[in-house]
């Protein structure tokens, strides 16, 4: 492992990030770079990572950041410090992506050699251009049988306007092209600027929590310098702290004397709670305070909402503490208590978008072992009532009486949809079905089209991604940004089981969508509710008006085949399990609804 005698001079520092569409191989490439520069073997590497994961488990808090300082020795014997700054990979976290990009001078733009340029790749590239970053295209996964680097080169040329011949061909998985990538980082990405003599300004681009040391700030020093013993101030929080330690983000933290303008590293300032800091805030010198903050902070504001219930009511406490832990590192996640007559105690949660919702759900299930039920995702509506008040409503339970509503608005997005030219027809059809407001078409190349479409956010919350993939035979992708609020005609649809409202299934939908949505729910519910010995009517209703109906006939056969050769045991065990399951059913009126029925109705995949 190369070891410089002292600190690496600023002209041999490179700050870069990797931007990529999800699944294009960002983590694998990052791992490879770390491995190559760390000079560790596969085995040591794995062990080291496992160690830190165990550490995370002990602390109960997951450290997400993969930001790391790498030392790279070039062929002519010079040692460079390459600071890889982690970026979240999705539009939901666009602000986080921006914050990461602000800390860099360059970016590796990773494109899958088989999938090619996708909508998110384009979106990320635009942001990188906005911050004037040097972009190095990398065509990854060239080892795949379906890889078509030449086509991808064309796309990089036509759709991103980058020089296709500057693209590095790589297979992160097989370790091919890694040297070339490191060379490109050194030769093409400029060193950071900034004057170490200026008053300190450092951007907090991420933070970690350490049980022993408290909050660990990950910072990019833009101006001035920060050293141990300095008295610093967090501008937004307006709190002063004494710097206990600064250092570099090696695989483990490595203390140094000073972080100067251009450096990326960490600072520990005796802050005990992660809630006491804000990612995106600026660190300044308390004695010589800079006047302006760095642009980086934005109040996280959830736009997608869903009610989260534990499948087993016993897990409510567990869910509460898990949400508490997750929100420590994820200020964008909001949650408040909620009660459903059908599902018991749960939480109404707010997310930055569908992917954020997915990530949180996955972490709750995987890291905390919880089985969860999530209600249909909803957006936040603005409802004006006759008394002149404006309400923000994202929970059907709080939707005002329609009689006193003056007007309703819903959020719109601008979606950028990249598709093969031959799919334009079906995609336009899909968009029209999704209440398309306006659209514009850009022909990027002979084969590929970008559709810029304005449509309600609520319309992409239900299987839009899946439908887009289907109608484009897997070649379509999309990305979106929030636009504004526009007037809408909203109704609250209730689902009734033998006349009783099932609160967990109520939803706010556009008038036009009410009937098909209600019918879909009724049918799925009818298939999932087991036989009762009386007829069950399942209805969709707006207020007192029934708009959809299905029936479950009484006396659905419920007697299994033979106990063959006298094997009564197997059958008894089955009945015991069913009898046990019956105790956990939710009683709605005189009808018993198993949890599985809610799962079947609500499972409409929210992946974006």
């Amino acid at each position, binding site marked *: 492992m190369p070891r410089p005698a002292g600190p690496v001079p600023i002209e041999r520092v490179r700050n870069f990030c990797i931007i990529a569409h999800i699944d294009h191989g960002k983590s694998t490439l990052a791992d490879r770079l770390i491995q190559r520069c760390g000079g560790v073997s596969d085995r040591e590497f794995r062990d080291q990572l496992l160690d830190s994961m165990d550490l995370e488990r002990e602390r109960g808090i997951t450290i997400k950041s993969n930001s790391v300082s790498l030392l790279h020795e070039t062929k002519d014997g010079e040692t460079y410090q390459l600071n890889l700054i982690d970026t979240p990979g999705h539009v939901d976290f666009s602000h986080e992506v921006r914050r990461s990009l602000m800390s860099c001078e360059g970016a590796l733009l990773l494109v899958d050699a088989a999938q090619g340029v996708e909508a998110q790749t384009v979106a990320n590239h635009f942001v990188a251009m906005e911050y004037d970053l040097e972009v190095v295209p990398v065509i990854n996964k060239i080892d795949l049988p379906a890889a078509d680097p030449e086509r991808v080169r064309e796309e990089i040329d036509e759709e991103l306007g980058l020089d296709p011949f500057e693209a590095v061909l790589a297979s992160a998985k097989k370790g091919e092209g890694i040297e070339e990538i490191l060379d490109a980082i050194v030769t093409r990405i400029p060193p950071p600027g900034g004057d170490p003599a200026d008053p300190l300004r450092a951007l907090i681009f991420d933070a970690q929590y350490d049980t022993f040391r408290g909050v660990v700030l990950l910072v990019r020093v833009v101006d001035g310098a920060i050293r141990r013993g300095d008295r610093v101030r967090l501008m937004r929080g307006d709190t002063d702290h004494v710097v206990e330690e600064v250092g570099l983000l090696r695989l483990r933290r490595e203390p140094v004397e000073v972080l100067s303008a251009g450096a990326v590293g960490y600072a520990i300032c005796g802050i005990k709670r992660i809630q006491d800091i804000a990612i995106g805030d600026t660190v300044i010198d308390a004695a010589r305070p800079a006047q302006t903050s760095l642009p980086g902070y934005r109040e996280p504001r959830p736009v997608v909402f869903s009610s989260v219930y534990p499948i087993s009511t016993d897990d409510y406490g567990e869910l509460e503490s898990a949400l508490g832990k997750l929100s420590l590192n994820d200020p964008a996640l909001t949650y408040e208590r909620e009660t459903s007559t059908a599902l018991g105690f749960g939480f109404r949660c707010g997310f930055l978008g569908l992917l954020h919702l997915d990530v949180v759900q996955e972490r709750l299930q995987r890291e905390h072992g919880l089985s969860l039920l999530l209600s249909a995702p909803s957006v936040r509506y603005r409802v004006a009532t006759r008394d002149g008040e404006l309400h923000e409503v994202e929970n059907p339970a709080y939707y005002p009486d329609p009689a006193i509503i003056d007007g309703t608005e819903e959020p719109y997005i601008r979606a950028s949809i990249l598709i093969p030219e031959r799919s334009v027809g079906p995609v336009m059809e899909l968009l029209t079905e999704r209440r398309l407001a306006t659209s514009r078409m850009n022909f990027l190349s002979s084969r590929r089209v970008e559709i810029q479409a304005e449509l309600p956010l609520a319309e992409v919350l239900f299987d839009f991604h899946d439908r887009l993939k289907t109608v484009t035979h897997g070649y379509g992708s999309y990305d979106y940004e929030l636009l504004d609020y526009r007037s809408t005609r909203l109704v609250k649809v209730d689902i009734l089981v033998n006349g009783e409202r099932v609160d967990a299934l109520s939803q706010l939908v556009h008038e036009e969508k009410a009937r098909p949505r209600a019918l879909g729910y009724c049918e799925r519910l009818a298939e999932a509710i087991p036989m009762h010995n009386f007829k069950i009517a399942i209805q969709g209703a707006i207020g007192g008006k029934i708009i959809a109906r299905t029936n479950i006939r009484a006396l*659905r056969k419920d*007697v299994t085949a033979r106990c063959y050769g006298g094997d*009564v045991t197997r059958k008894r065990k089955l009945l015991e399990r069913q009898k046990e399951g019956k105790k956990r059913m939710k009683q709605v009126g005189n009808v018993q609804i198993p949890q599985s029925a809610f799962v079947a109705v609500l499972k409409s995949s929210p992946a974006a």
Partner: protein
Amino acid sequence: MTDRPDSTSLPPDLPTETPEPAAPGLYVHVPFCSRICPYCDFAVTPLGGPGSERLDRYRQALLQELELRAAALGADTVYFGGGTPSLAPAGFFREVASAAVERGLASPSPFVFLEANPEDLVHDPDLARRWAAEGVWGVSLGVQALDESRLRFLGRAHNASDVAVAVSRLAEAGIPWISADLIYGTAGQTPDSLREELVAIAALPGVNHISAYELSIEPGTPFGRRQARGETLAVRSDHASALFREVHETLRESGFAAYEACNFAAAPEFRSRHNRKYWSLVEYLGVGPSAHSFAPERGERFWNQRAFDDWEEAILRGEEPTAERETLCSHERALEELFLRLRTTDGLPLGRFAARYGEAVVRANRRLFRDWRDRGLVQLRGDELRGWLLPTRDGLAVADALAREVNLDALAHDRNAA
């Protein structure tokens, strides 16, 4: 308290037309088939042909198992199930039945039953006569379907005319009890086509018993794998209900009365003498791979090794080839009584149930039983606490649901079976 029904304690208006079986049964599992049906998940292996070496090993081990399990059981039925017992060589049934009598497991001259494939009776015109000579009293014929496309779908080797030939040979040989077994609910089956098949089966001269089971797709079978891949092999649940009603109505019109959810007899004396023992919790012993046994006095169920080799190995070591045993707690025992007895038109004798599990259990469910009656699922004959719950046709259709509804919370999950 024993499990043997005590006839003196039964109410005078006992609704059964034939008394419940009292003597124990002996089940003999024959684990061979010439080919394996795609829906079957029983313990079977394909067999090259009769007389093969494996079949002989099986016969030897089976006789040894009877010796190992020798006891004064005194079964009055010996039932050969499988698998395909009709593949067994000449003399097999007599030899095994005699050995069982000799070991005390069966009483002298037991009723001997066997399951048979129609094609075996077609290929060997003497087979039925030979069985009759060996003392076989009843044959359960694996008809499964008469419709040609359904037979192919079910992977059966016979056709509709084979069934007619097989039945006539059994009847001519003087086999007194002939049952036709049917599988319904294959994808695409309509009530009308089912009715045609049922009418044709019921009209076969000599058939005096019919079993009709809904196709169930079991994981681990070829059908299970096909269904997992998304194929539709069976009708949907609401359609299955319609077919169930069709079975009951058509067979009733054809002179076959239901006495269990899936079993029909042309007259009370043709109710299955052996299978009824399973539903009325009478003692039985099973021998052969995977066979199940029930010892009510010990409140114990146990079953044999499922794999042929494991079963044989245990016997060759001189050990009983039992794989596992369980002692039922009163909760488990009560649940069994419920779901088994509610499958039958003999129904549930509340007085006996209360005597065994305590009157509190019956009291706790009185309202439920009345509710069933009001919904037309059962008749309540006699006193609310000591009378009989008799399932109607609609009740038989939902027997499992009824058993699940009964509140057994008063019963402890203890290990002291009654």
